[in-house]
C-alpha cells in the first residue's frame, strides 16, 4: 500500500498538470481570439463614427444645399459598409425636405395668388372708372391726366396678372376673339415705353377668345423686355408672318442682346421647366420668361428668344398654332353704317332728291328713307344717320347745278 501511494500521487499530479496546461493553452487561444475581435470591433466602431460624422458634417448639409437649388455636389460615403443605411437616411431626409419646401411654396403661392387677385380686381375696377371718366370729360387736360393714370393702371394690372399666373392662377379677363393687331396693340398698352413699339400693317387673322388674354400677356412681357433692354432712342419692331400651320409674331429690338447663360435660362423657362417655382426667380425677381413659359405650356403656343435680331438685339418669336387662330370677317362694322347711302355724291344728272317742280313752280324734294327699299323701320340712331346723309345729299344736289363748290372749303379751319 505504501509503495503504491507515491505512484498514485505522481499520476494524479501529472493529470492535474496536464489538465492545467491544456486549460492554459485554451485560455490563451480564447484570449487571443477575443483580443482580435475586440480590436476589429473597435475599428469598425471608429469607422462607423467617422462615417456618421461625415454624414452629419458634410453629406447632409451638402444635400440640403443642393435641395435649395444651389450648385453643390453631394459627397459619397467613405466606406462601402455604411453606404446602404446612410443612403436610406439621405433619401428620407431629401424626401422630407422636398415635402416641406413644397408645402411652404404652396402656401406662399396661395397667399400671393389671393393677394394678387385682390389687386387685379381693384385695378380692373379702376380701369372701368377711368373709362367712365374718359367718356364723361371733354377737356383735353383732364383726358391727358386720365390717360396717364390709365397707362400706369394697365402696367400695374399686368404685374399683378403675371404674378398671379406664376402662382397658378388663370390670366383672368374673358375676352371675345380679337384681331391679332388688336392683341398686339393691347400688349403695347401694358408696357411703359409703348410709343417705341412699331406695329405692322393690319392682319385679318384673329386670336380665339380663350387665348386672347394669355397671348396679350405673353407679348406684353416680350415687348417690355425688348423695350427695357434697348436704348431709349431705338424702336421695337413687331412683325407678323404667316407660317405653315399658324402665325408668327416677331419682336425685334436694337438692344445689347443676351449672354449665353441668359439664353440658357430663358430657353429653360420658356419651355415651362421650373417656371412655376416662385423661389427661383432671383432678386429682383425676373418673372417675364417664367410667366411666358407657364402660359405657353398651358395654352399651346411657342415662344423662343434664341435668334439674333437683324437690328442687333434679340428677336423674340411667338408662334401661334392654327388652333388658337380664327378669321375676322369685319365684325367691327356697325349695322347702321351700312344703312347709309352707298354713293353719297351724285354723279352727273341723275338726282333723286330734287324731282322736278311742283305745279306752283317750287322745287320738289323728297326725303330719302331706307324704307324705300322695303327695310323695317330703322332704329333711332340709324334714322339720325340717314337724316344727316339725306341732308348732305340735299346740300350737294343743290350745289350740283352750280359751278365747282368752292364754298365747301370755307368751313375747313
Amino acid at each position, binding site marked *: 500500500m505504501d509503495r503504491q501511494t507515491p505512484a498514485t500521487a505522481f499520476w494524479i499530479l501529472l493529470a492535474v498538470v496536464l489538465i492545467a496546461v491544456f486549460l492554459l493553452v485554451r485560455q490563451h487561444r480564447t484570449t487571443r481570439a477575443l483580443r482580435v475581435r475586440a480590436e476589429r470591433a473597435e475599428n469598425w466602431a471608429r469607422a462607423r463614427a467617422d462615417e456618421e460624422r461625415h454624414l452629419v458634417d458634410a453629406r447632409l448639409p451638402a444635400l440640403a444645399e443642393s435641395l435649395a437649388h444651389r450648385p453643390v455636389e453631394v459627397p459619397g460615403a467613405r466606406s462601402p459598409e455604411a453606404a446602404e443605411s446612410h443612403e436610406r437616411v439621405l433619401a428620407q431626409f431629401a424626401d422630407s425636405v422636398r415635402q416641406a419646401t413644397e408645402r411652404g411654396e404652396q402656401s406662399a403661392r396661395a397667399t400671393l395668388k389671393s393677394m394678387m387677385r385682390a389687386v387685379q380686381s381693384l385695378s380692373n375696377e379702376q380701369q372701368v372708372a377711368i*373709362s367712365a371718366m*374718359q*367718356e364723361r*370729360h*371733354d377737356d*383735353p*387736360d383732364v*383726358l*391727358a391726366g386720365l*390717360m396717364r393714370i*390709365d397707362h400706369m393702371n*394697365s402696367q400695374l394690372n399686368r404685374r399683378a396678372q403675371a404674378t398671379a399666373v406664376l402662382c397658378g392662377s388663370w390670366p383672368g379677363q374673358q*375676352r*371675345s376673339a*380679337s*384681331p391679332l*393687331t*388688336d*392683341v398686339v*396693340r*393691347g400688349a*403695347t*398698352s401694358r408696357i411703359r415705353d*409703348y*410709343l417705341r413699339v412699331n406695329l405692322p400693317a*393690319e392682319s385679318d387673322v384673329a386670336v380665339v377668345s380663350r387665348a*386672347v388674354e394669355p397671348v*396679350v400677356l405673353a407679348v406684353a412681357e416680350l415687348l417690355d423686355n425688348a423695350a427695357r433692354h434697348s436704348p431709349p432712342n431705338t424702336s421695337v419692331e413687331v412683325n407678323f408672318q404667316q407660317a405653315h400651320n399658324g402665325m408668327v409674331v416677331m419682336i425685334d429690338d436694337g438692344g445689347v442682346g443676351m449672354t449665353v447663360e441668359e439664353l440658357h435660362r430663358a430657353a429653360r423657362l420658356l419651355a415651362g421647366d421650373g417656371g412655376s417655382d416662385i423661389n427661383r426667380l432671383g432678386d429682383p425677381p425676373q418673372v417675364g420668361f417664367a410667366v411666358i413659359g407657364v402660359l405657353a405650356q398651358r395654352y399651346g403656343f411657342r415662344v423662343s428668344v434664341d435668334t439674333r435680331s437683324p437690328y442687333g438685339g434679340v428677336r423674340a418669336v411667338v408662334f401661334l398654332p392654327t388652333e388658337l387662330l380664327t378669321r375676322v370677317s369685319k*365684325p*367691327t*362694322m*356697325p349695322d*347702321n*353704317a*351700312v344703312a*347709309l*347711302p352707298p354713293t*353719297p355724291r351724285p354723279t352727273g344728272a341723275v338726282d333723286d332728291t330734287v324731282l322736278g317742280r311742283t305745279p*306752283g*313752280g*317750287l*322745287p320738289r324734294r323728297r326725303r330719302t328713307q331706307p324704307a324705300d327699299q322695303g327695310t323695317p323701320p330703322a332704329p333711332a*340712331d340709324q334714322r*339720325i*344717320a340717314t337724316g*344727316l*346723309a339725306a*341732308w*348732305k*345729299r340735299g*346740300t350737294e344736289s*343743290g*350745289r350740283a*347745278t*352750280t359751278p365747282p363748290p368752292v*364754298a*365747301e372749303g370755307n*368751313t*375747313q*379751319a
Partner: protein
Amino acid sequence: MSGDRHLRGLVRPYVVTGGRAHASRNTFDAVTVVIATREQVSGLSPEKKRLMELCRGGALSVAEIAAHLSLPISVTKVLLSDLVDSGHIATHAAVSHTARPDMKLLKDVLDGLRARL
C-alpha cells in the same frame, strides 16, 4: 356692343391716339359733321381706317363716330383732327353754315314763292 366693350378694354385710348390727349385743332364739337374726302386709307391706324370706312358711307357727326368706334368723344376728336390734317376728311361746323352757300336752291324757292304769291 359687348364685343366692342371687350375690344375697348384691350386697346386703351392712349395707344389709339399715340399718347396724345390734345387735338391738333379745336374745331370739333359733338355735332360737327364729317365726310371722307379721300379713298386711300393705307398707312392709317385701325381706328382711323374704321373711321374712314364709316365716313365714306356719308356724313356722320362726331358723336356718332365716337359711338361707332366705342371711343370717348375727346379721343375721337384727336383722331379726327389728325385726319383733317392729313386731308382724309372734311368737316362742316354746323348745319346753318353749310346750308348758307346753297344759294341756287334758295333762289329757286324764292322765285317759286314769288310766282305763287
